């Protein structure tokens, strides 16, 4: 057994029945409490404790005052979803293929596709999403929708402040997901 601690120092004469002391762990203990030495040590340790707490005062608070200050999130942070448009043409990237809905383990995405009218194209493909809803009260922010999307139409944003008073308010429609989100979350810079 390898878990021996300083067996050399231990006094084995007190344990004559232990022919070989292989299995005995000797533990080094601190000085016994009590007595004058104990009082002296207690006083010293008290002063050490006082110094420790005072050092915390000098360090200063580390609190982040949340609603005013926010912890910056990483670039890879998976927050609220965003739907995207093509920057040049303004057409929606989503073609209503429902792969995101299929990939979603929480079953929170609902897509109803419709044929594009060639005169008023809404998306770049043949079809577009007539209805695109994400129920954020069910979403687990796994990011599978983002992975599943063949056109990078849906990505996970950085917004994590989504509390609301009603469950129905947490069903985000296509317009809400397409809208340029209010930049509420600071982004962590590289290497921070």
């Amino acid at each position: 057994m390898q878990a021996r601690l300083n067996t050399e120092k231990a006094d084995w004469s007190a344990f004559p029945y232990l022919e070989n002391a292989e299995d005995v762990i000797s533990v080094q203990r601190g000085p016994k409490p009590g007595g004058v030495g104990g009082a002296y040590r207690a006083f010293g340790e008290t002063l050490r404790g006082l110094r420790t707490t005072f050092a915390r005062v000098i360090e200063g608070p580390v609190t982040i005052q949340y609603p005013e200050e926010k912890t910056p999130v990483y670039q890879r942070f998976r927050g609220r979803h965003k739907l995207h448009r093509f920057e040049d043409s303004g057409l929606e990237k989503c073609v209503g293929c429902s792969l995101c809905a299929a990939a979603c383990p929480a079953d929170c995405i609902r897509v109803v596709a419709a044929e594009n009218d060639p005169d008023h194209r809404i998306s770049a493909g043949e079809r577009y999403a007539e209805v695109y809803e994400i129920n954020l009260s069910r979403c687990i922010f796994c990011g599978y929708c983002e992975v599943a999307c063949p056109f990078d139409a849906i990505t996970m944003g950085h917004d994590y402040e989504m509390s609301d008073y009603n469950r129905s308010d947490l069903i985000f429609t296509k317009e809400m997901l397409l809208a340029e989100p209010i930049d509420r979350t600071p982004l962590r810079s590289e290497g921070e």
Partner: protein
Amino acid sequence: MSFPLADVGYTEAVWVMVVKSLIIFLGVFGIVPVLTVAERKLIGRFQNRYGPNRVGPVGLMQPLADIVKLAGKEMFRPEAAVPFLFAIAPAIVIFSGIVTLAILPFGNVQDGIGLYGIDVSIGVLYFFAFGSLSFYGLLLAGWSSGSKYSFLGAMRSAAQLISYEVSMGLALLGVVMMTGSLSLTSVVEGQGEVWNVVPQIVGFLIFMVAGFAETNRAPFDLPEADAELVQGYMTEYGGMRFGSYLLAEYLEMFVVSGIAVTFFLGGWQGPGPGWLDPVWMVAKTLSLVCFFIWVRATLPRLRYDQLMALGWKVMLPLATLNVLATAVIVTVS
């Protein structure tokens, strides 16, 4: 002017005494709520956080919010409680704290007015008398609540009282022997050259430790012990009765710090003109209160046998030796 209980060093007209007692009362009662928020903020700093800072500017209105909340709560009384004692117990605690304020000297006689409530010739005894009385408040509260937690808290506070009050008295006795007077103003005047904390350092340390026990503050907050006794003797209290216990705790902390300053840290004495005396007194007292808070943020609560062992095996012999040594030195010189 004759007083029924004790001789008084200096008296003014009755209306002057009424006015100055009102000023002391209102002044200290203005400080106490600030202390509650100061304690929480300081403990926050000791733990790398801010403490309350939402109510009002930098959280200074927090005590107001606390008091409004407490006053709005029901003054609950359990069925098994003894109604009269249950109601009077918090009053006793507050009363004894306020009454002890009367003897704290904030300055000597200036322009014919003594800057203290009253200068009784038995100042030390007065302090101990009302200090012990406040324990009746805790004991009655614990007993009359009809709850086992409260009862345990009360028993603890009783045991704590008899263990520590003796050492506390002996610690002050050294100073009293050096001064030759029980009056608090003479004690302060006796420290003109050197503060008593220098020759009586042992007495000061013992008094401070006993003071933590006397005020039920950490590390001697066994009667409250929120973890195991759910606030001990005040378990069953609610509303402003509970609030008055909190108030009394801070008041007692102020009073004990004031007594420590008076006896060991030179009382009102400090550089500057005479009108600065009360400022010095309050400043010293408040810094001692900060020390109380610092210790609370540092030390864990003692186990009960440790409390008793410290009281009887360390503090009492040490205090007795201190008194004996002081007696010998005072007699010889």
